[in-house]
């Protein structure tokens, strides 16, 4: 920022006042309230037990399953995204709004309906197995398994991984690629030594945007897990809806938040300054 601030600049800060009020009212205050719930019992007394619920065997099992789904889905999203973005770059689809359009358009079909469509595709007598039977391939039994939840999660969050990686890779100047080739680098080396490191900020945003929601989703696991497989999101949701224990639900939420913050601290530590805007 500039040293000598003009009169205008200091007055410009005032423009942010409505937003600052908003942040105080709708970001900070709700957090304070949920933390308050998390550390009190029904009688209003201070307690750690709500937070500790996360370590009870049944909840720990949901946490572990959530981690499994989140990690495998995030990795799958990464593995699907890079070839996609590289292919788009290779075919020169980079600068065109058209390619973004292709990635964003599916969001205009309601998200729950899209997941229900996957249920129709993946169910035991569903579309996928019907197609497989045409080729005389034995039907797959993936309905109501972790695999089918993972497919739904990957499907739903793939654009959130692809878009930031796309932005980061399209920002890489073709000159750098040429310079690397000039110095003797082949395609694989260029990817590993130039493109991958330079797309890291985008990759990190992608991980943040996929990992957290995939761990906490409860609709996808509801529909594709057949109601038997519980993610931590399902557990929290039930505390609020069926069990009606808001303190326990808040405790689990805060525990989840702490966990997310810790894992984010690890991934975003590498973030270089001045690149806050990589996400979109």
């Amino acid at each position: 920022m500039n040293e000598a601030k003009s009169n205008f600049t200091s007055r410009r800060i005032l423009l942010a006042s409505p937003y600052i009020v908003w942040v105080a009212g709708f970001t900070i205050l709700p957090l304070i309230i949920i933390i308050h719930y998390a550390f009190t019992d029904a009688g209003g007394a201070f307690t750690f037990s709500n937070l500790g619920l996360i370590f009870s065997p049944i909840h720990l099992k949901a946490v572990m399953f959530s981690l499994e789904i989140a990690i495998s889905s995030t990795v799958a999203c990464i593995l699907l995204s890079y070839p996609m973005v590289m292919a788009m770059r290779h075919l020169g689809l980079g600068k065109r709004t058209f390619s973004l359009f292709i990635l964003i358009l599916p969001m205009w079909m309601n998200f729950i309906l899209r997941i229900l469509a996957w249920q129709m595709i993946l169910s035991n007598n569903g579309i996928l197995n019907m197609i497989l039977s045409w080729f005389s391939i034995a039907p797959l039994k993936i309905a109501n398994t972790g695999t089918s939840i993972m497919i739904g999660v990957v499907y739903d969050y793939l654009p959130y991984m692809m878009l930031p990686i796309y932005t980061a890779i399209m920002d890489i100047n073709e000159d750098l690629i040429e310079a690397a080739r000039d110095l003797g680098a082949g395609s694989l080396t260029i990817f590993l030594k130039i493109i991958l490191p330079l797309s890291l900020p985008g990759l990190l945003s992608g991980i943040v945007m996929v990992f957290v929601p995939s761990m906490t989703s409860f609709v996808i696991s509801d529909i594709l897990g057949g109601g038997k497989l519980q993610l931590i999101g399902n557990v929290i949701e039930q505390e609020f809806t069926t069990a009606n224990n808001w303190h326990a639900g808040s405790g689990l939420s805060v525990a989840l938040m702490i966990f997310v913050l810790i894992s984010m601290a690890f991934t975003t530590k590498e973030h270089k300054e001045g690149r806050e805007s990589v996400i979109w």
Partner: protein
Amino acid sequence: MKRFKDIISGIYIGFIAVLLYAPILVLIVESFNSSRSRVTWGGFTLSWYVKLFNNNQILEAFITTVLLAFGSAAIAILIGVPGALGIHAMGRKRYKTMMALTNIPMLNADIVTGIALMLWFVHFIPLSFGSVLLAHISFNIPYVILSVMPRIQQMNVSIYEATRDLGAGPVYAFFHVLLPELLPGILSGFFMAFTLSMDDFVITYFTKGAGVNTLSTMIYGQIKKGIKPEMYALSTLIFVLVSLLLSIGTGISAKKEH
């Protein structure tokens, strides 16, 4: 060699496109399926489209969804754009703090954001359309700020100050200097906010009161009983309409690029 790479690239993009659009195709087909059962094909029909326009519940949810998306995106722009301009003028430390606070709703799990807002609302205001609107504005503003901030960083804000210095009023300077520069960022922020709000389920689910339904919450409620086929018809209509609008939009912007 290059040809080979072209072909592989094309096939891969095709594969991802199939993955992204297969469920959408399924839903569109369902909207013409005369059988109420989702797994059997009972023949082609347009009756769900006809019934849709007599189903007041669904139409009401649709109107709520659109009003919510439009209202929350518009208010998010009104708060977020001046917010971004103000934050940009702050010193390094305050700038970083504000951006970190802006990131909280994006980093936090939707379920946590939804629950936290709900706990807040039940203490002070009734859960209603208003509370959902407030919640949507809250998660939309960060997207607006993050869309507009790069444009602000790119442009020379001192141009605005120079314009003021030359005697232009703040209103004139805003509309003639700032707005044209920021417009692409504002539009993409609005579009992003609108899309996310239309597609949101989790936050709406926790912050809505009884009687308020968006398309998402209505569909969620129908899962156990079976989705009303009119819903497929409506979703297909929305999807086709948006596809057309966006195609025209990108067509125009692609022409401009050339």
